[in-house]
């Protein structure tokens, strides 16, 4: 699947973090706060202002600059899901990674 930067994801889209493309301080900072390789993030808000993501059960707001440094692999293309949702209330495909 394609690798994108976190800021390019739309609300509701989920991604698995594949790496951080930044300086040492930013990278370690992000790791410490849980943006480590392999964790799953879900975009809660992404319009103006900092992006809000949900990560391991908590909500974190982060600026665009940082979000652009976070590389993610898109998990659920949201369009497909949204369509499925519209077409008669089908359940979300259950492809969440089991821990």
């Amino acid at each position: 699947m394609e690798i994108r930067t976190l800021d390019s994801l739309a609300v509701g889209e989920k991604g698995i973090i594949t790496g951080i493309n930044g300086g040492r301080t930013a990278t370690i900072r992000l790791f410490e706060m849980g943006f480590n390789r392999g964790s799953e993030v879900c975009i809660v808000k992404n319009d103006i202002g900092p992006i809000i993501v949900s990560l391991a059960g908590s909500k974190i707001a982060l600026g665009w600059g940082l979000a652009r440094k976070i590389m993610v692999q898109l998990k659920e293309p949201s369009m497909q899901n949204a369509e499925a949702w519209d077409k008669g209330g089908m359940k979300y495909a259950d492809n969440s990674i089991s821990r």
Partner: protein
Amino acid sequence: MQTIALVGNPNSGKTTIFNALTGTNQHVGNWPGVTVEKKEGIIKFQNREYSVIDLPGTYGLGGYSEDEAIARDFILKGDHDIIINVVDATNLERNLYLTTLLMEMGAKVIIALNMVDDAEKRQIKVDYERLSKELGIPVVPTVASKGRGIDQLMQKTAETIGRKNHIRDISYGKEIDEKVAFLKDIIERHQIDREYPSRWLAIKLLENDEDVIGKYQDNAAFKEGVLAEVKKTTDEILATSGMEPEMVILDKRYEFINQVVSKAVVRPKEEIDTISDKIDRVVTHKYFGIPIFALIMFIIYQLTFTIGQDILGEALAGGIEKLGELVAGWLEAVNSPEILNLFIIDGLFGGVGAVLEFIPLIMVMYMMFGILEDSGYMARAAYIMDRSMRALGLHGKTFISMIIGTGCNVPGVMSTRTLENKKDRMIAILINPFMSCGARLPIYMVFIAAFFPKHGGLVLFSLYAIGIIVALTMGKIFSKVFRGEESFFIMELPPYRMPTIKGIGLYMWEQVWSFVHRAGTVIFLVVSLLWILSILPYGVEPYSEDSILGIIGSFIAPIFRPAGFGTWQASVGLFAGIAAKEAVVGTLGMVYAGVEEGARLITSIQGVFTPLSAYAFLIMSLLYTPCAATIATIYKETNSKRWAWFSAVYTFLIGWTGAVLVYQVGRLFGLA
């Protein structure tokens, strides 16, 4: 006495546990970064005393910001016998990162698995016995806010403190493990005098931890024997794995955590879209976010005004007045000396009493702030303001310190410690005094009651808003002046919580108590001192222009003439306000109380000020030189006398300019 240190991520409940353990009432708030300094307390348990230390919350041991550095330094120094690692049960993956760092250090650790009530609600099941086994650390589940599990936690702590560690070594994969072991050997062979375990030192060296390396800079054996080997090892790892060793180690820590979590935690498949999300969708909305925030603030000021002032405040003021009359009558009856009567009636009742009248107002206002803070909304306010802040070249978290400043500028200035970047922090400190603190409320209230009784809420709101606008404008200017690298914004948004009576009560009490306390100490002293100056030289008409106080005031007064309040009384009041802001009202109350027998301050000033000059005076009071305590805090936080002086002087100039502008422009428009 043995020492227990509380360590954990921000907002994991450390201070709540600290309060539960020690029976103290330290400030708890539902947002990250409430605790920015180390706090100490004592607990007596089974006839032994322990010292408990509450540290600022931290995600790791990088010490990026001042508050995190305080936590880091304390942990590394090792002046503790055991660490209680407070871990948020709803958030184990992220919280355990810090735990792994503590494990590496070989510190004696016990985990307080806090917020298990929240975890239950969200159907997150934590098998804490399993967790304990996987980590080799005792785990005690707690609900700190309800006091549950605290006894067990202390019991376990007391047991563990005297025992040997069973903490597991974390594996970083075969290659790194071997290198770590190799470096550990070298460190031990060089017999370097060190305070840390050699395995930990080896890991930190591989991680290229500057602080740790810096500690041994002067040690020749270390530099030649160890550092050279570290460099070689680092290159080898880089060559084989293509990654910096520190990244590999970070990765492996999380791998370890994920293993532990997968065994000990069961999460629901799909996180339920909680109420939290729904509220957030509204209050952080891209267009409505800021208007909603403004509306909430406006409602708070309006309620403060009607309930705190018109209803409760009037009642208390009436009560104080009655008491004053009673005491006056009694004093006359017992034939006490005239001079004492003057002091008690004018100085105490007129001056200090005028300040105390505002207790209900402070209560109501901070009760509502307490609700906002406890609910978790404050972090959202910082979030929605970030965009505007950024446009001005400021950091989003600056706004948090500004909100805290509306309580009191002292903690406001201190809370800037959470800002990682020096430049951001400096700006946040310098603009904080423009945030209107609780001590300035009495001034506003007296003048509002005298001149704008119909538009109280609006005037109050305008003052707070002007404070924010001036702060942001100055921030913009400073951001152009100071140089510094670009900073990033990252902040956890805490879950919404139902505010508890206890939490709100505590917050309110904190404010009221400090208000009463200042009234009884600083304000009392200042008013007494000024009172003496106002009846000297001997034989002068008390509180007249010919008294020493009057002479001093008349000397300053001309500079305020362009602002419309060039009276000696106003000048003396403002001057006294530098000691503490309530003293402005205290002093005015005193000097006017003596002039017309029994007249209340409000009626006295109606004859002296006009609505326009009153508003100019309010602007001056809002913006001019912060109180002595704030200046002292600025000195402490910037560690620079120059900045402390600067902050005292430039705010004065801005206050003066603002007041003059209001008065002169108002006159142009024909206001009076």
